[in-house]
């Protein structure tokens, strides 16, 4: 009996580390690895303007209100509750008490006031602050108590509370300045060109359902890796756990090898679109200007493009046909009453005939007898865009239109579409990270620079553009989301009727997640895979490199 006990005790001693490791790895601890696709330009959360810095801001920054990437609803963060005034100018927050920054500095309403002042400081040129600037004037901030703050903006700011998802609160008193954070992790080490190491913030306020402190992970190592092939190779070798965004081509490659690791969350917010140059001063022939200004012409082109084929062939089925400026992934703001654009080349020809075009043999000619032919430009090196134009070439050849493709390096392309206007049609994508229609003000206002088909108009060139201006202004100053939605639905309807942008596809949000990661729930909103980083953990039996 004594011998049996000795053997049992000896076995227990031998196995104890493994039990402990399994317990700790399954519930907490471990280091998550993934890649940044560029060098972070700043650690100051107010100056973030590119993806790498945004990733660090998301993982380290504590925000008053957090947009849940899964439900698309706003959730309390550092603020327990908030209230926006009816005129949309004032927002008051009630803050959590007893919180501390990562360096131990207490968190109070003074820190929020300090952050908002810095955000709105014109000297700082904060890209995040730009979203709050609806007019000139100062923001009035009151801090009636250490857990209450009221900010009054000079003019109504539409979707005001949603904007605070991007505002990481800074410490007013910490000697570490912006390196003192309220998010789940803090920056512990940074080797330029190599990696950024984030460690668990032990002062993080959030706890799980069982009352255990979050985050579970001990640290996150972000390796700086620009090359996507190498990133995928490292994932396949088990050297990294996540890839936040994958192209269709890489996704298919991964899915063949490791189906459990490839995740397609469905259509995302990004879109690919084609538009015709409608700038009156553009150096184009008069007949081409007439075509491009014709609504029937644009609608016929839209009708003659087989979007299903684009999705199926170019994106291997990892995209959905797009029909408007809002992706169906944007649950609240998408106008579901818009009809899907049907592919019908015969109907497109009838529409063109009504606009004075006629098919002579296999060639479409306008009323003056000119052959209908135009050139689509896109950025060089983008295989999927080149393939889309090539497929559009064949689609439009069915209705007698000849399409040429020219790829240009990105600076040359931007020069043509924003300065010289020396182009006929352009195919590009729009990366959308914000759900709110206000983020598209710079596209739909006729005076806007990104009103791409005819930018920077001194007054609206057409009645429907004047109506777009009116509706965009109205939605931006409306007091409730319901009223704003009505206006924004009308904007989507006008865009569908006029086709200034011919929307082609909404690409799926695809990502790669190692089976070793527990708790992941990919979302169509960015960040797709680490939006809930505080509840991610590494599984006990699948350590790094186990899926080799």
């Amino acid at each position: 009996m004594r011998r049996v006990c000795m053997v049992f005790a000896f076995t227990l001693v031998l196995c104890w580390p493994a039990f402990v490791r399994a317990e700790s790895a399954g519930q907490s601890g471990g280091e998550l690895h993934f890649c940044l696709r560029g060098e972070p330009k700043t650690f100051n959360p107010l100056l973030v303007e590119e993806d790498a810095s945004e990733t660090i801001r998301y993982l380290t920054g504590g925000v008053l209100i957090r947009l849940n990437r899964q439900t698309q609803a706003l959730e309390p963060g550092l603020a327990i509750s908030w209230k926006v005034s009816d005129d949309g100018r004032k927002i008051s927050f009630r803050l959590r008490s007893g919180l501390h920054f990562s360096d131990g500095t207490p968190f109070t309403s003074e820190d929020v006031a300090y952050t908002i002042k810095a955000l709105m400081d014109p000297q700082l040129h904060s890209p995040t602050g730009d979203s709050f600037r609806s007019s000139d004037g100062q923001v009035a901030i009151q801090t009636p108590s250490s857990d209450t703050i009221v900010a009054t903006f000079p003019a109504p700011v539409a979707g005001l509370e949603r904007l605070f998802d991007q505002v990481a609160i800074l410490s007013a008193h910490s000697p570490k300045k912006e390196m003192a954070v309220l998010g789940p992790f803090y920056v512990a080490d940074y080797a330029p060109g190599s990696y950024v190491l984030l460690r668990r913030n032990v002062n993080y306020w959030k706890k799980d359902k069982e009352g255990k402190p979050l985050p579970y992970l001990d640290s996150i190592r972000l390796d700086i890796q620009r090359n996507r092939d190498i990133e995928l190779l490292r994932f396949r070798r088990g050297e990294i756990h996540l890839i936040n965004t994958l192209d269709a081509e890489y996704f298919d490659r991964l899915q063949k090898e490791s189906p459990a690791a490839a995740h397609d969350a469905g259509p995302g917010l990004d879109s690919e679109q084609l538009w015709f140059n409608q700038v009156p001063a553009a150096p184009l022939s008069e007949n081409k200007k007439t075509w491009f200004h014709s609504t029937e012409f644009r609608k016929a082109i839209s009708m003659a493009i087989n979007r299903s084929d684009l999705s199926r062939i170019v994106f291997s089925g990892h995209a959905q046909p797009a029909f408007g400026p809002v992706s169906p992934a944007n649950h609240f703001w998408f106008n579901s009453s818009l009809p899907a654009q049907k592919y019908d080349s015969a109907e497109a020809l009838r529409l063109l005939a009504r606009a004075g075009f006629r098919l002579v043999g296999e060639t479409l000619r306008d009323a003056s007898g000119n052959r209908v032919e135009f050139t689509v430009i896109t950025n060089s090196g983008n295989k999927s865009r080149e393939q889309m134009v090539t497929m559009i070439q064949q689609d439009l050849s069915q209705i007698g239109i000849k399409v040429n493709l020219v790829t240009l390096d990105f600076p040359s392309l931007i020069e043509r579409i924003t300065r010289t206007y020396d182009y006929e049609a352009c195919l590009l994508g729009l990366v959308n990270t914000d759900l709110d229609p206000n983020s598209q003000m710079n596209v739909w206002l006729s005076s806007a620079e990104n009103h791409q088909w005819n930018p920077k108009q001194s007054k609206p060139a057409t009645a429907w553009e004047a109506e777009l201006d009116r509706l965009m202004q109205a939605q931006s100053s409306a007091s409730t989301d319901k009223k704003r939605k009505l206006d924004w639905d009308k904007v989507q309807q006008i865009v569908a009727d006029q086709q200034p942008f011919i929307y082609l596809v909404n690409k799926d949000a695809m990502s790669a997640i190692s089976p070793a990661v527990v708790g992941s729930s990919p979302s169509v909103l960015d960040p797709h895979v680490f939006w809930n980083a505080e509840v991610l953990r590494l599984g006990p039996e699948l350590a790094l490199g186990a899926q080799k």
Partner: protein
Amino acid sequence: MNALQKVAASVLLVIFVLMVLATFLLPAPFARQFRDIPNAGPSKAHPLGTDALGRDSLSRLLYGTRVSLLLAPAAALLSTLIAALLGSVAGLLGGWFERIVLAATDLSLALPWLFLLLVVRAMLPLDVPPLVSVLIAFLMMGLLGWQASVRVICAAARGVRDSDFLLLARSTGCAPVRLLWRHVAPNLRPLFYAKFFISIPLFILTEANLSILGLGVMEPMPSWGTLMRGFEDFSALSANPWRLVPLVLLVIVVTCFQLVLPPQEVTQ
């Protein structure tokens, strides 16, 4: 002509015949997309399968052979002629002219040609037809691809400059042009051939890179270069080895060109 040369000549002849008769031999138009069968394997209807957009790979290969096999040698010929002229004259004359030519060569080697090409593309009108765009691309390659060869040819011409036969020719009152044409050029001919044949595959691959910048062959027109752009997806390539056919054809053509010439012309 030995047996090997005969085989090489026959292979080249077959390829040229296929190239010329491509229009009649194509299983399908090279731009037509069979969208129900993208990335299909070899079949009776599509002997080399289809590409990512469902286009017949054999048709694209035959048409691409026509584009590449006519234009790449033409560009190689142009660059070799420029290099031969500049290098031979510089080597023969020596002195300040040689120094100027070599300095200009060094300078142009140091210039960032990629940016020049980007500027040229940006300046070109957008409605340039695809065929003209291809011609411009190969013309530019021909006009800009001579620098490396000049130095080698100049060094060889310098070696010939003090030879006895050239001294004899000079003493008989031979004019400089005749000296160059009848005495120097024949002696450097193997070098010219070598430079010419080295340039052909180089220009075919350069054309593939230029296509990425929007300056080479544009869709839907195929070329060996654009067909070889598909090699970047290595996993797809290993699963579909028949896609290597353009590369195999390139190797065969370049090898046959080397073999078909008399050995003394290449390795004198």
